[in-house]
């Protein structure tokens, strides 16, 4: 056991931290929130030069060949600074291609992803808003060598700028819900696809994607017909851990900013950080951060080692969701009115705590998975 970052991870961390500090100031974050695209192409290209989109892609497909754990190390930094844009959707959507893509799909797409030429996202949720297979109603019907997709997907992050959309569809509704799911890799330019950005708390460009008689060739199926759900579960698991890593970074910023401010802000002739009522809240913020941190690191390590970790991923996500929201809330409270203003950095994090909570499964969804994993019948 050695719970330190490796030397290579320390380098990755430092590089990411320095890069984001100069290239992604909060002025840009706010600008991007208000922009239509929600990301900066210039920044995206620089990230590609650093190899971020191709971090977990094997070297033979022009990636960096790093581990999943390395990815979470990077995401902790992007969370710490805040990095708007399609990094997480693209990276998480890369996994189904790595896992279930044909050699042809891999050779075609993976180098483009690594070079930053292609943005991918996943269209999973629908009107019901559940992360369970029962919520998938979008239908894919076979027609010759093609499938025709009809349905409406919701909350597909950055779908409006994506080149490809991984679309989770129902191909069989006579079986139990998990057994009739098929995943398609869809070119977003295909006729019949319409995208609209849903206004949301983190302005992170979650989209409604409507599929109206969208024709997709059979060869674009990822994995096998009707057997797509395990791939979705894999994405949700990796996505949950990735989101947790990002959240840990954000939580740390909230704690650091709050502690620093409490040493400067003077009321009643002393820094507010001298009041024990606030000291204990900050101690609790720190404690909840640190208990989250090693829970997430453990899940990331297990995922990276290829160990079964559905339980650990859900334990972490259910826990960190609540910690981030609460630390964010206390960060606002301890700053006072100043942190309620749009121009302050703390609310950027606070708003994202709600988005992070929902992404890849909310607290109650993951608690239910935990309940099953610990043997409640």
């Amino acid at each position, binding site marked *: *056991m*050695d*719970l*330190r*970052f*490796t030397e290579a*991870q320390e380098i990755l961390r430092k590089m990411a931290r320095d890069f984001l500090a100069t290239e992604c100031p909060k002025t840009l974050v706010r600008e991007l929130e208000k922009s239509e695209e929600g990301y900066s192409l210039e920044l995206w290209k620089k990230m590609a030069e650093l190899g971020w989109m191709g971090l977990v892609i094997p070297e033979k497909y022009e990636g960096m060949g790093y581990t999943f*754990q390395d990815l979470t190390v990077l995401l902790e930094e992007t969370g710490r600074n805040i990095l708007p844009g399609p990094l997480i959707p693209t990276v998480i959507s890369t996994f189904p291609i790595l896992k279930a893509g044909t050699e042809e799909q891999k050779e075609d797409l993976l180098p483009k992803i690594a070079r930053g030429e292609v943005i991918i996202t996943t269209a999973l949720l629908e009107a019901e808003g559940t992360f369970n297979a029962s919520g998938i109603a979008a239908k894919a019907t076979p027609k010759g060598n093609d499938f025709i997709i009809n349905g409406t997907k919701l909350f597909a992050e950055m779908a409006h700028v994506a080149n490809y959309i991984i679309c989770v569809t129902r191909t069989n509704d006579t079986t139990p819900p998990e057994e009739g799911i098929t995943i398609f890799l869809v070119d977003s330019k295909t006729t019949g696809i319409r995208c609209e950005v849903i206004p949301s708390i983190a302005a992170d460009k979650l989209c409604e994607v409507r599929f109206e008689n969208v024709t997709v060739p059979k060869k674009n199926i990822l994995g096998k017909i009707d057997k797509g759900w395990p791939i979705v579960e894999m994405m949700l698991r990796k996505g949950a851990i990735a989101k947790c890593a990002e959240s840990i970074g954000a939580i740390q910023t909230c704690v650091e900013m709050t*502690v620093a401010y*409490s*040493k400067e802000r003077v009321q009643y002739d*002393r*820094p507010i*950080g*001298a009041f*024990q009522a606030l*000291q*204990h809240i*900050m*101690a*609790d913020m*720190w*404690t909840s951060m*640190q*208990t*989250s*941190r*090693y*829970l997430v*690191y*453990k899940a990331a*390590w*297990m995922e990276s*080692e290829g160990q079964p970790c559905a339980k*650990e991923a859900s*334990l*972490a996500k*259910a*826990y960190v969701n609540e910690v981030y929201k609460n630390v964010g809330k206390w960060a606002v409270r301890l700053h006072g009115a100043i942190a309620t203003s749009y121009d302050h950095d703390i609310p950027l994090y606070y708003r994202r705590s709600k988005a992070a909570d929902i992404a890849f499964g909310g607290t*109650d969804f*993951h*608690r*239910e998975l*935990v*309940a099953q994993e*610990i*043997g*409640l*019948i």
Partner: protein
Amino acid sequence: MDFELTEEEKAHRKEFFEVCKELEGKRPASFVGFEATYEIDECWEYHLYCAKEFAKRGWLALGWPSEYGGTGTMMDQVLFAEARGYHRIPGFDIFGVQMLAPTLLQAASDSIKKKFLSPIARGEVMWCELWSEPNAGSDLATLTATAIKKGDEYIINGQKTWNTGAHRSDWGFGIFKTDPAARKHHNLTFILLDMKTPGITVRPIPYMDGGAPFCEVYFDDAHVPAENIVGQENEGWAVVNLLAGFERSGMVEIMAMFHELEELVKYCNETKRNGQLLSRDPIIRNRVAQLACELEAARAIAYRIADLQNRNEMALMDASAAKIFYSELGERFAFFATDIAGPYGQVKTSRWAPVHGAWEKAFQECFVTTISMGANEIQRNIIAWYGLGLPRMK
């Protein structure tokens, strides 16, 4: 970053669990909650028996230098704690083995080490902690019991209180005022004393549940040899702080809760209310899962502390965080389990009690970890002042 244990560590862990599992089979039914060790005669006997079983395997000296009979590594200590916690086995004197021994190894003279370490490793001498006084709790340094040197002896007068197991233990380590004229923190000496010394009177104090885990200890001209001190005379405060750092990382309590969680799950899977199994109730599922999340978080930070300690790095902030977290999780666990049990949540160990009355016991015993070993509010001060660098209260 790597959470994997080495093959050797895995083998050791397996052995610790096997031995503890076997000892569990011999545990008296009255052993409910760890404080039973001190409260009930047959539990104390069992504690001594387990200590001997551990001692003969060298497990009371894990991670010690070999010259004092040490075996294994610091990591073994952690793995052993997991096994004892999970199977709820005493036999590991938290005062002697957990706290005093590492303190002696770091701060005591050679002769003290020679004299006291090996009886601890052999599981022969049990210790108690004689620190708190009626008017010196969190602010321990304001204590007033005196030890005045006369020739080659200290003569001790005053009163200590809340001393866990003082009525059962052979020896005690205490902190006494040796120079009433000197300033705070430089007037105290850390003294080891035989509890059979004439002039020492021990009176058990009943805990709220009726058991007596701790005592008041009165000193009335008790003479103890002046050589039995740790560190320098009048510099005992440094020893107190050193020893406090070896207080429980919580691994035992955390693993005990893991076992309790399994029992809770079983209870929910078997118990019907309003015509439905508790386990089918979504609210109950949600709350049990939440406990599982918090428990895993507690274990994760306990591993973090182990990792730091394995490299001899300071774990001050993390140790305080872990202590706050697992002890308050213990409260939440007790509240929740007694809730779920409905009217049975109030029943003491008896044929009506779910899980042998462990939950009713936990509802009262949870204060052991929140108040002792530095109250949680003091732990929060430590994080705020020493960790986060916030202005210290005067």
